[in-house]
C-alpha cells in the first residue's frame, strides 16, 4: 500500500515524534515554495485561470503567518487582488473569492481607490477618526453604499458592502474579504458584527455583552401576535403567522441551537414571547471544532430579522 495523506496526518498527531515531524514539515515547506514560486507562478496563464492550490489558500497561509509581500508569490498575489476587485465590480471571475485575505493597503486600493494612500496612512497611525471622516464623505457625498463599524477596543474594523462582510484586522495589517466559512476569532469582533447588523436590521432588539463574555440578543414576539396563532395546525399556508409558528419556528429554533451557546425562551409579564440568544466564539463547550463562523452568524441574523420584521415591527 503506498504512502497516503492519512499516514502523514497520523504522524502529525503523534506529539512524541518531534524530529520526524520537523523533517516532514521541512519537506512540506520546500514543496510549497516550489509549488508557488516555480511550478505555478512561472506560467502566468495557468496561475491566473487554474492556480495549483484551491482558491490560492497558500497565500492565506502566508498572510495569516504575517509574511510580508516580499515573501509572497507576487504574481499570484496580484491576480488574487484582481479577482477580489473584479468580484466587487460584479465582473466575471475564475472563482468566488470568499474568505480571501489582502494586505490592508490593497484592500483599501480595491474598495476605496481614490483615498487609499491617505487611509493607509491614517490606519498605520491609528487615526481612525480621520478614516471615518473619509468614509462618511464617500457615503454622504459620493453616493457610495457601505456600512462600517470600529470595534470597542479598536482591534477590528468591519465593513459591509451589500451582503459581503470584510473584516480589517488592525493590528495584523491584513483584511479578511468576503468572510464566510472562516471562524470568528474574538468576542470583540463577534460583538462588533452583531452591533453592525443590529443597527441595520433589528435596532430595537437589545444587544449586550454579558459578564460571561457572551453576546446576548433579546428578541421579542409581542403577546398579541401570539394570541393570533391558531390552536390547531393550519390546513393551508395562507396565514403567515400560523404557518410560521406551526411549521417553521421549530426548525429555526433548531438551527439557532446549533450555533448559539444558549437559548432562553419565556413569556414575560406582558405575555410577550422573549427569545434570548447567547452567542460565543465557541458555540459548544464540548466540541472544539464547533467554532462560530461568519456564515453561521448570518443565519442567526436572518432568523432574528424575521422575528423583528415580520412580527415585532409591524404589530408592535
Amino acid at each position: 500500500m503506498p504512502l497516503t495523506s492519512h499516514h502523514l496526518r497520523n504522524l502529525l498527531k503523534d506529539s512524541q515524534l518531534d524530529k520526524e515531524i520537523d523533517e516532514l514539515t521541512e519537506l512540506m515547506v520546500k514543496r510549497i515554495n516550489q509549488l508557488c514560486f516555480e511550478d505555478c507562478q512561472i506560467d502566468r496563464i495557468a496561475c491566473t485561470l487554474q492556480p495549483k492550490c484551491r482558491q490560492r489558500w497558500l497565500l492565506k497561509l502566508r498572510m495569516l503567518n504575517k509574511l510580508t509581500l516580499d515573501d509572497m508569490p507576487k504574481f499570484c498575489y496580484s491576480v488574487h487582488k484582481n479577482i477580489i476587485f473584479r468580484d466587487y465590480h460584479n465582473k466575471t471571475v475564475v472563482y468566488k473569492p470568499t474568505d480571501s485575505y489582502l494586505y490592508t493597503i490593497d484592500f483599501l486600493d480595491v474598495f476605496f481607490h481614490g483615498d487609499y494612500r491617505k487611509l493607509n496612512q491614517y490606519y498605520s497611525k491609528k487615526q481612525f477618526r480621520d478614516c471615518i471622516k473619509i468614509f462618511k464623505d464617500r457615503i454622504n457625498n459620493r453616493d457610495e453604499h457601505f456600512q462600517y463599524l470600529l470595534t470597542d477596543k479598536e482591534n477590528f474594523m468591519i465593513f459591509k458592502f451589500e451582503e459581503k462582510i470584510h473584516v480589517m484586522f488592525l493590528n495584523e495589517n491584513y483584511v479578511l474579504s468576503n468572510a464566510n466559512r472562516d471562524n470568528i476569532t474574538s468576542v470583540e469582533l463577534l460583538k462588533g458584527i452583531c452591533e453592525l447588523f443590529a443597527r441595520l436590521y433589528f435596532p430595537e432588539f437589545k444587544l449586550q455583552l454579558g459578564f460571561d463574555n457572551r453576546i446576548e440578543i433579546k428578541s421579542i414576539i409581542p403577546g398579541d401576535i401570539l394570541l393570533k396563532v391558531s390552536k390547531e395546525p393550519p390546513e393551508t399556508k395562507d396565514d403567515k403567522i400560523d404557518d410560521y409558528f406551526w411549521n417553521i419556528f421549530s426548525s429555526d429554533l433548531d438551527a439557532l441551537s446549533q450555533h448559539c451557546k444558549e437559548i432562553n425562551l419565556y413569556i414575560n409579564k406582558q405575555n410577550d414571547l422573549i427569545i434570548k440568544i447567547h452567542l460565543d466564539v465557541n458555540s459548544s463547550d464540548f466540541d472544539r471544532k464547533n467554532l462560530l463562523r461568519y456564515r453561521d452568524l448570518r443565519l442567526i441574523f436572518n432568523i432574528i430579522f424575521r422575528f423583528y420584521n415580520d412580527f415585532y415591527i409591524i404589530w408592535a
Partner: protein
Amino acid sequence: MGMNDKKKGLIKMSEDKEQDPELIKIKDFIRDERFDDVVQIIALYLGDATDENYLDRLENLMETLLIQHGGRTVLRFLIEQLVIDLPSLLESLSKRDSVLRYSFLLLLKSFCENECDLFMPFIEDLINSEDPNIREAALQLTIFMAGGDKGIDDELLIKSISNKLTDEKEFIVEKAIQTLKVIGKSNTSLVSRVLSNIVKENAENEELKQAADLVLKAIVSVNQIEEIVEEELTESEIIEKEEDEISDKEIQLKKKKIELKKKKLELEEKLMNEKEKSLKFKEEIIEREVEISPEREDLPKKLKKQIKKDENEIFDKEIELKKKYIEIKKKKLEIELKEKEFEEISIQEREKTLKIKEKLLEKESELSHVEIELQQKKIEEKEKKLREKELEHAEVIFKELEEDKRKEKNE
C-alpha cells in the same frame, strides 16, 4: 451560477446592477443566434466609443462574449470581418487585468486550432512586440495553433520563438519553452535544428543553453536522437552547406538585381511615353490656341464654353502627368534604396563567407600545427629508442669486456 459557466472556468458573480442597453441587445441577439446583426451592433457600439471609454466598452464586450453561449462564434465573425483587429485588441487588453486577458485568450483557442491562417500573418510581429504581455499572448496563441490540425513549420517563426529563450522576462522564457515543446512534438527535427543553431551562435549564453536543453529533452526521444544524429552534419559539411547557401543567396540577389533593372527600364519607358504624351498635349494646346485666338471674341458662346472645357481638361491632364512624373521619381528612389539594401546584404553575406573561410584557414593551420607536433613527437620517440638501443649495446660490450678482463686475471 450554472454548471455550464463553471465548465468554462468562469463564474458570473451576481446580476449586473446597471446594464448597458447596448450590451443587453447584444446578449439577446447572440441568444437568438443573429450573429450577422450582432456583428453590426458591436461595430456601432465600438465605433461610437470615445478615446476615454473605448477600453471600457471593449472590456464590457469581451465580458459579455466570454459568458455567452455563442460568444466564440461572434468573436470569430468580428475578427473575420475586421471589426476587431486582433493585434490592436491584444494591445488594448494588455492594459487590462490578467483575468480578462487570459480568459479572452482561451476564447480564441479553438479558433487558433482550426483557422491558424488568420493569425499567422501577424503572429511573428506580436512575438517580437515591445510589450511583454503581448509577447506572452502571442506565444500562447502559437501554442494553440501548434496544437491544431496544421501545426507550425515556419522556420522563421520558430527562430523568433527561440530568440525569446533569452527574453528579459522570466515568464516569457517559460512560455517560449512551452511553445517550442508543443511545436517540437510534431516538428522535432526542425525545432532541434533551429535551437542547436541558435545555441551555436550564442555559445557563451548559459541561460540559453539551459532553456534549449529543457526543450530538447522534452521533445527528443532516444529513437529520434539517432535520426537527428544521422541528420547532423560534420563541421566541414556544415561549412560546405553554408557556402552553398551563400552562393544560392548570391544567385538570388543577382536575379533580383536583374529584375530590378528590368523594372527600372520599364519605368523609364513609361516615363518616356508619358513625356511624349505631355509634349503632344502641349503641341495640341499651342495649335488650338493658334487656331482659336484670332477670332475668339467672335466665336459663339457654345464654342467658347467648349474651348474653356478643353482647356480645363488639358490643364487637369498636365497636373496628372506631373503627379505621375513625381510618382515615377519616387519609385526610382525606392528602387535605388532597395538596390542599396541588396548590396548591403550581399556585402554581409560576403563577409560571412570570408569569416567562414578564415575559420577554415585557422582550423587548417591548427591542424598543421598538430601534425608538426605529432611528427616532432615521433622523431623524439625514435631518438629515444635509438639511444636506448645504443645504451643496451654499450652495456653488452661493457659486460663482455669485463668478462674478458676476469678471464685474463684468472689465467
